[in-house]
């Protein structure tokens, strides 16, 4: 009867805790399923190549949800933070992966990517968070583009005299003959030793979930949500609006920076163009489709919509058309009252078949 006991405890647990446990479980089960497929040789190449990007986009979607869903501000520059994290982290990795022990260099690369994105989140947040609604969206969009354009124009090299930087071209850095070009303008960083694996990606996803879900369900998270629900009321009960807006914005930027490192270390070259307006919008689409303030929705939407374009490769000509239709279909059916009612019925059916049903009900009443 051990099983029954577990179920009855499950029913008594705090609802918030159960929600979180299910989210962790979804990620872990997906991880184990993929590992199993890989071990038995059933994993297609097209899918295995998508595993790290999926993890990246899940982190991006969950972290953007903190700003869009929980703080209630529309940010269109999330890819900018991803870019800053990717370039700083990768730069560190390229310089140190030979000399330092690999795991140490990798952890440091993630931390540096996160910290750099966080610092820029703070700097950008100062002017941006004074704005509201559409204005904030426009300015974050501009910042995302500025970051992309600036990184696209940077030439950075290192030689025996130290670092050289230029915004013109590689020659004008005036390096010695022994120098190497690290960032080559629009060509970006090349020859990166790949380091990201699916396991690292899943660990990063779990860290992101841990940080965001616990933050949202705490004193600070309540304050962040109160600003979304009613800014004037939040002010009137003494919530420091700017502080909590900043907290949400920076946390989101740090996580996006780490996602950037994860993403870039999956490829041998890194270019700034990848982190443009389209990427920001793509992540926003994940958040909106998954549901504002719904973390599980973000995970699922990011996963499905990252895999989908790959699966649609067979109908290459109509790929974007099908993708768009699917987006619209998801939008209509995901939140429609009938679909929600249908999901409730299904959930009820599953519950009634569970052995611990009686205990569950008792747990609720007690």
């Amino acid at each position: 009867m051990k099983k029954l006991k577990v179920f009855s405890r499950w029913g008594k647990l705090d609802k918030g805790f159960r929600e979180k446990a299910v989210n962790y479980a979804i990620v872990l089960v997906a991880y184990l399923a993929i590992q199993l497929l890989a071990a038995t040789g059933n994993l297609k190449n097209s899918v295995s190549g998508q595993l790290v990007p999926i993890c990246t986009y899940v982190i991006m979607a969950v972290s953007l949800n903190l700003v869009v869903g929980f703080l209630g501000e529309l940010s269109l520059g999330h890819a900018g933070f991803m870019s800053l994290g990717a370039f700083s982290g990768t730069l560190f990795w390229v310089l140190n992966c030979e000399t330092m022990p690999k795991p140490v260099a990798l952890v440091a690369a993630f931390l540096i990517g996160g910290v750099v994105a966080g610092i820029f989140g703070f700097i950008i947040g100062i002017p941006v968070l004074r704005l509201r609604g559409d204005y904030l969206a426009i300015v974050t969009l501009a910042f995302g583009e500025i970051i992309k354009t600036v990184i696209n124009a940077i030439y950075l090299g290192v030689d025996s005299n130290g670092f050289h930087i230029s915004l013109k071209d590689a020659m004008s850095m005036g390096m010695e003959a022994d120098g190497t070009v690290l960032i080559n303008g629009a060509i970006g960083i090349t020859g990166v030793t790949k380091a990201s694996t699916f396991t690292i990606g899943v660990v990063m996803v779990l860290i992101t979930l841990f940080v965001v879900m616990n933050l949202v369900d705490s004193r600070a998270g309540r304050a962040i949500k109160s600003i979304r629900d009613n800014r004037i009321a939040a002010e009137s009960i003494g919530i420091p609006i700017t502080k909590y807006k900043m907290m949400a914005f920076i946390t989101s930027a740090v996580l996006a920076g780490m996602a950037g490192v994860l993403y870039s270390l999956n490829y041998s070259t890194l270019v700034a163009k990848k982190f443009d307006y389209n990427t920001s919008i793509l992540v926003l689409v994940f958040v909106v489709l998954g549901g504002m303030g719904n973390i599980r929705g973000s995970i699922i939407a990011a996963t499905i919509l990252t895999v989908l374009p790959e699966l649609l490769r067979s109908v290459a000509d109509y790929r974007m058309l099908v993708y768009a239709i699917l987006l619209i279909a998801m939008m209509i059916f995901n939140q429609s009252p009938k679909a929600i009612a249908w999901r409730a019925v299904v959930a009820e059916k599953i519950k009634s078949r569970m052995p611990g049903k009686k205990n569950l009900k008792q747990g609720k009443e007690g």
Partner: protein
Amino acid sequence: MALLEVRNLGIAFGGLQAVSQLDMTIEKGHLYGLIGPNGAGKTTAFNMLTGMYAPTEGNIILDGVDITGKSPEFISKHGVARTFQNIRLFNGLSVLDNVKLGLHNQMKYAMWDGIFRTPKYWSKEAEMNHQAMKLLKIFDLDEEADLLASSLPYGKQRKLEIARALATNPKLLLLDEPAAGMNPQETDELMKTVRFVRDEFGIAILLIEHDMNFVMGICEEITVLDHGQCIARGTGKEVRNNPKVVAAYLGGD
């Protein structure tokens, strides 16, 4: 010394003088009323007292601290809480969370304690839950603690707003039309609650209200505003018989 001293308070929006030369003294533990026809400047006065608007003239002294033109956050921390004419709850949050947000500045733990679930997080959250439930019980809302604030019926939403304001541990509570949209029984009940709050928490209450039975019934002193200026002050009886007040409400010269 009085709890709140308002001296010569005024605000102009461009050429429009919304409130001018308003004087008011509020003592600890008393109930005050602020009445006047629509557009008299009552809510504007509230907005200046709570820092939503910065006055263009005059001073507001709360318990010896000059709070004139300070931020709402500062004023809330110094002990002024309010409710709103059009209810402003955190609709996406539970009833309990709404009150816990009122406790935000009373019980603190850092962001890191929240993320890493330190012992401090658990003890402070338990304390907050306990305090919030105590407040909810006073307002007969403890049964609904886990519901969304938006799902409460209108009367209970009004009560929840008062509970949230009280959670900030105020010295002065400002109620902006607390009985608006209530039926006579609900108004009666609210009157009892307001008196109870004053006695239980020992705070001063200043309220705006159009329901004259309500105002005359519980307020010890009433200030009447018209066109942004104080036209009368006194007990309910004195105010009712003041010809200026009658003229302001019914018209006349």
